[in-house]
């Protein structure tokens, strides 16, 4: 799978246009246009408000950064047929650690951030060693660390302490713009580029897919399966720590409940983006489109007058995100089913 985008002959073009990522792009454009026309109004002061404002687009970008980062972290993990349920909890733990290192440890923001990244990678290493050394299923291991990391975050703060009063220079990362975009978007794009190169342009990426297709096969082919697997989980921990720092900068607070439930949004985005939950196939650009489709849907719904009147933005976004995911999954298996159907009726029996 994951046809390289340089394909030339016309049949490949057709394949390219109907690939899952392209379909998702159409959905995203349709969504965007719909909300642009249905969700933009002029308020009583005569100001254009709603979805069709630049501020709104920046908000969408700003709100997608953390879940987007987690989705990026999960893409290689899921390509190897693994899963990491702990990254939302790890985001919370890293936010707390970062706050504590800065506030109680008296460290400067850059040092605290650097240490937090190291600790995030270390936490990812716990997942990695349990999964590779003990050969435990990732689902179970990360279900365990899902509770463990959140529990640690709550224990450190007794569920009550919130770290705040961060300096303005740090809040700049989460609340202001730099070179035209929300500052954290640059971090997000940087990580996306990095993970994209890793997955699509290196032998590591090929190894991830091979492992996802068949770990035994990969082992027989001489791939260092354990080391490659360890890499994806450590990387996931590291990216969760980056997300934690951005989250803290956006809200101006570090609290133990940070990132609760984010892992599920991230998994949704990855799967929506065409990465198979059984591993072996998937793409980073698909994940980015998945993140965008969900973010636009969620944010756009909140602009619709009818949704506003019903005061149901959050419920509607949950409902339609689910519907979108199921629709996308159905659409992606439809060609297979159709072709099987055609084969059965038109082709001679084998």
């Amino acid at each position, binding site marked *: 799978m994951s046809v390289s985008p340089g394909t030339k002959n016309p049949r490949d073009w057709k394949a390219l246009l109907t690939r899952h990522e392209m379909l998702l792009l159409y959905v995203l454009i349709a969504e965007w246009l719909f909300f642009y026309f249905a969700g933009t109004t002029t308020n009583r002061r005569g100001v254009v408000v709603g979805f069709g404002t630049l501020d709104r687009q920046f908000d969408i970008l700003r709100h997608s950064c953390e879940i987007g980062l987690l989705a990026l972290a999960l893409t290689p993990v899921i390509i190897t047929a693994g899963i990491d349920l702990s990254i939302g909890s790890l985001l919370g733990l890293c936010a707390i650690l970062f706050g504590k290192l800065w506030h109680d440890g008296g460290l400067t923001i850059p040092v605290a951030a650097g240490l937090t990244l190291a600790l995030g990678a270390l936490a990812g290493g716990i997942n990695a060693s349990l999964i590779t050394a003990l050969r435990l299923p990732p689902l179970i291991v990360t279900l365990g660390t899902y509770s463990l990391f959140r529990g640690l975050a709550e224990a450190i703060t007794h569920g009550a302490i919130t770290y705040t009063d961060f300096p303005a220079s740090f809040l700049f990362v989460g609340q202001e713009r730099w070179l035209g975009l929300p500052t954290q978007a640059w971090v997000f794009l940087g990580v996306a580029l990095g993970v994209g190169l890793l997955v699509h342009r290196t032998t590591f990426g090929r190894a991830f897919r091979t492992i996802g297709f068949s770990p035994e096969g990969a082992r027989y082919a001489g791939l260092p399966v354990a080391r490659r697997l360890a890499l994806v989980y450590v990387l996931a921990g590291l990216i969760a720590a980056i997300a934690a720092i951005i989250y803290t900068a956006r809200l101006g607070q570090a609290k133990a409940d940070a990132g609760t439930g984010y892992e599920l949004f991230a998994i949704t985005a990855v799967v929506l983006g065409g990465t198979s939950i059984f591993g072996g196939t998937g793409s980073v650009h698909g994940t980015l489109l998945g993140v965008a489709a969900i973010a636009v849907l969620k944010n756009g719904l909140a*602009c619709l*007058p009818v949704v506003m009147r019903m005061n149901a933005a959050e419920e509607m976004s949950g409902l339609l995100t689910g519907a979108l995911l199921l629709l996308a999954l159905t659409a992606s298996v439809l060609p297979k089913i159709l072709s099987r159907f055609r084969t059965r009726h038109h082709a001679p029996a084998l």
Partner: protein
Amino acid sequence: MKKILLHLCTAGAVLLASLVTATAADSKLVVAMLPKSKGNAYFISCKVGADKAAKELGIQLLFDGPTDSNAAKQNEIVENWITLGVDVIAVAAENKEGISTALRKAQKAGIKVLTFDADAMTDARSFFVNQATPEGIGQGLMDEAARLTNSEGEFAMIVASLTASNQREWQQHIEARLKEKYPKMKLVAVRPCDDLKDKAQSEATALLSANPKLKLIMAICSPGVPGAAEAVKQAGLTGKVKVMGLGLPNENKRYVHAGVTDSIILWNTGDLGYLAIYAGVALAKDELKKGAKTFKAGSLGTFSIAGDNILLGKPFIFNKANIDQFDF
């Protein structure tokens, strides 16, 4: 395949479009109210009052919040409202510092911001609709206790903990009121219950056996009241030892109807929502300005303002006669 998807898209768009009624610009003032969590019965009862105020004032009320108490979602909802260009945002802050960054942004965008129920940082809002001052709560509790015991005899208190700052503050106001107005009453014991009903019950049982002349138990944390009531009931002292305190109507209804608990003190949440909307609209219309001493809110009359706190005023007493009208 492409065709199928395009069909699906169109179908989806049509479906969504059918949900959208006329998007004609509403010329009504828009007030957006953000509870800590929107499923919480406490805030739903605030909304009842807010709806009433919105109807009287002819404004559009948006009432949205996280489905669970989630500070990050509160911020996202506020940011959403900023780009929607609402006129007023009224917030019950889940997290004081966290929400304030979003509220300051709203203020910068020309939106009037006020808080109710739980305050944000003072620079992030114009007014706080304060449902109860520690003084008001302390005096209300002590006065009601005195009324129930004809201002004489021994009573004991159950508190959440001996150190929690709000509990300490309420207790000081209760004791001050006691000293000042009720010389024939005597506070014989103050016991902590760690905010647990079971602990409150065992503490109350111990209080009852250690103080045979006890006439009343006052609990100032919400699990304390039903806990104390259960102890009194099991000791067979219903009616002989009165139970009252600070709590929520629903968890005490049973005991109030059984005659174990006499009164529950809190504030009228409907009035809180009503006042918050009236204050928000007055802010938007520039009728409520910094430094005002009083504020008139529709049918509820005039409220006093202390600094930038609009005071809901005296606590509300729930008893057998009215408790069934409240559901939170």
